[in-house]
C-alpha cells in the first residue's frame, strides 16, 4: 500500500462508510436479528469485511447483540435517531392529547401524517387495544397518491390539484374535489383486507393542510356514520385552532430540502 496514491485512504474510507450506512439500511429492511453471514449475503460483500464493519458499528451503538447465536439488531443509537426525527415535526407534540381522545372516542388506531417531499409519513399515533386492530406502523412512508392520508394532504395542499390529462389524473382530480367538498376521505380495503380508513386534514389559517389525522380499523367495528364522523372531527377542532394560533407548530422541518434530494425510501 505504500505506493498507493494519496487519495486512496479517503476513497477507502468513503467506501467503508457507505458500506456501513448500507448495513443500517439492510437491518431496517430485514427488521429482525441477523448474523454476519446473512448480512454479507445481503450486502454482496466478503464476510471478513462485513465482520469488521459490524464490530465497529456495534462498538459505537448502532448495532447490538440480539441473541446468544451472534445475531445482531439495530442498536439504541439508530432507534433513537428514528424517534428524534419524528420529534422534529412540532405538530406531533401538539397532537398528543387529540390522538388520545380520538382513540378513546373511536376505539380505533389513530395516527398523524405529514408530507415529506412527495411522500406521506406516519409520525405519531396511538394503537387500538382491541383484539383485532390496525397496527400503528410509525415511520411508514408512502407516495402521497397511494394512500388516503396522502391524497387528503394533496387535496388540501398549496398546489393540490392533479393537472394531468390521462385517466388516472382525471380520477385523482375528481377524488380531490370530493375530499375538499366533504372535508375528509373514507376508504375501504385500501391497505388491508376488511380495513377502513377515515382521514381528514388539519389546516393552517390559509386552509392548507399541515397534517392529516387518520383512524384505521376493521370495517365491521368502524362506525362510519355521518354523525360519528362529525363527532370525531370535532375532537380535533382545538388542535386546528392551536396550530392556527401558533404557526410555528405547522413547521415542516425538511421543506427547504429540494424533493430531488430527499432520499427517504418508501416502506414500513
Amino acid at each position, binding site marked *: 500500500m505504500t505506493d498507493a496514491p494519496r487519495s486512496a485512504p479517503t476513497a477507502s474510507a468513503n467506501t467503508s*462508510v457507505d458500506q456501513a450506512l448500507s448495513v443500517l439500511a439492510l437491518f431496517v429492511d430485514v427488521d429482525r436479528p441477523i448474523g454476519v453471514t446473512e448480512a454479507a449475503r445481503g450486502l454482496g460483500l466478503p464476510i471478513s469485511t462485513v465482520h469488521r464493519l459490524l464490530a465497529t458499528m456495534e462498538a459505537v451503538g448502532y448495532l447490538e447483540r440480539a441473541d446468544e447465536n451472534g445475531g445482531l439488531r439495530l442498536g439504541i443509537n439508530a*432507534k433513537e*435517531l428514528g424517534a428524534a426525527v419524528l420529534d422534529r415535526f412540532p405538530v406531533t407534540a401538539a397532537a398528543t392529547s387529540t390522538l388520545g381522545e380520538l382513540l378513546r372516542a373511536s376505539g380505533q388506531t389513530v395516527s398523524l401524517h405529514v408530507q415529506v417531499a412527495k411522500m406521506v409519513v406516519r409520525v405519531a399515533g396511538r*394503537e387500538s*387495544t382491541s383484539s383485532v386492530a390496525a397496527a400503528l*406502523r410509525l415511520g411508514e412512508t408512502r407516495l402521497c397518491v397511494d394512500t388516503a392520508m396522502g391524497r387528503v394532504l394533496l387535496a388540501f395542499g398549496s398546489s393540490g390539484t392533479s393537472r394531468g390529462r390521462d385517466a388516472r389524473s382525471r380520477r385523482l382530480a375528481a377524488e380531490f374535489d370530493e375530499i375538499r367538498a366533504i372535508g375528509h376521505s373514507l376508504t375501504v380495503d385500501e391497505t388491508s383486507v376488511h380495513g377502513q380508513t377515515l382521514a381528514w386534514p388539519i389546516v393552517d389559517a390559509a386552509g392548507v393542510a399541515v397534517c392529516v389525522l387518520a383512524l384505521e380499523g376493521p370495517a365491521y367495528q368502524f362506525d362510519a356514520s355521518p354523525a360519528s364522523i362529525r363527532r370525531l372531527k370535532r375532537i380535533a377542532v382545538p388542535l386546528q385552532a392551536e396550530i392556527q394560533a401558533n404557526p410555528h407548530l405547522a413547521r415542516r422541518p425538511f421543506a427547504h430540502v429540494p424533493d430531488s434530494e430527499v432520499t427517504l425510501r418508501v416502506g414500513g
Partner: protein
Amino acid sequence: MTTKQQHTDDYAAATQRAAEPPIGSDDVTGNKATARVLLILSRFTAERPEWGVSELGRELSMTKNMVHRALNTLVKHGLVVRSVDSSRYEIGPSAIEFARYGVANSTVCSVADPFLRTLADRVGETVSLAVRNGRHVVTVFGVRGRGVVARRVPVGRVVPLHVSAAGRAILGHLGEAEIADYTSRTLERVTPETIVRPAALRTHLAAVRAHGYAMTLGDNVPLSVGFGIAFPLFDRDRECFASVTVAGPSARFDVDVALSRLSEIESVITELNRRTHLYSASEMGSEDR
C-alpha cells in the same frame, strides 16, 4: 447497554480495534472513518437536533476537516441535511426509516431481557418484570439471583396494583385522575401490612413518585422473608406500563443494602427506560391500561 459517554469511550476502542487486525491499511482507514461518521451521527438527538461543524469538532475532538467530510457523507445518504440558512446541520429525512425498525420484535420481555440480566448479575439478586393489566400487575419475566437461596421469579403472579412494590411503583406513577379512580374503590387486604385506607395509600404513592421507586412493605411477602425495590418503566407516550423489581431474601437484601446499590440499579433502569421510551405499550404487548 451503553451510555453516550461510553459510546465516546467505545469510539476510541473501536478505532483502536480497527487499527489492530492485519487486514490491510485500507480497512483500517475505512473502519476508523466509519466509527467517526457514526459517532457524529449519534450526536444528533431529540434534545439537540442541530449542530455546527465547529461545535461537533470541539465536542468530539476532531478536526473541522474530519467533521466536514463525515457530514458530507451523511448528507449524501439523507441522514443529515443542512439547516435552512445552510450554516448548520440537522437530522435528515432518511432517519425516518429507523423509526420503522424493531416493532415486530419489541415485546417488553425482549426489550428488557439484557437489562434484567445485567441487574441480576451486578446485584446478585432476583430481578423481575411486571406489567400493568388494568387494576392489577402481572409478573411476566425474570432472572433468578445467584446462590442456592434466592427469591423465586413469580411468573404469572397477579396482584392488585396497591399490593407489592411492583404494583405500587406503577400505581404511583399513573396520572392523578387514575390514582383517584383507583383509590375510590375498595382496596383489598392481602396481608396485615397491606395499605387499605385510601388517604394512606395516596400519601404513600406521593412518596413513591417523589423517590422514583417503591419498596416492599410486607404487604405481599412478609418482610421477614424477603425484601424488594421496584422501579417504573415508561412507554413512548410517557405512560407507566410496567415495573422492574430487584428482590432478595431479607437475610442479605434489605433497605440498607438496596439503598447502598441504588445509583447502580438506577443507572441500568435509566438505560432500560431509554429503550421502552421508543415503543408504545401496545407494541410491546402490554396494552391493558
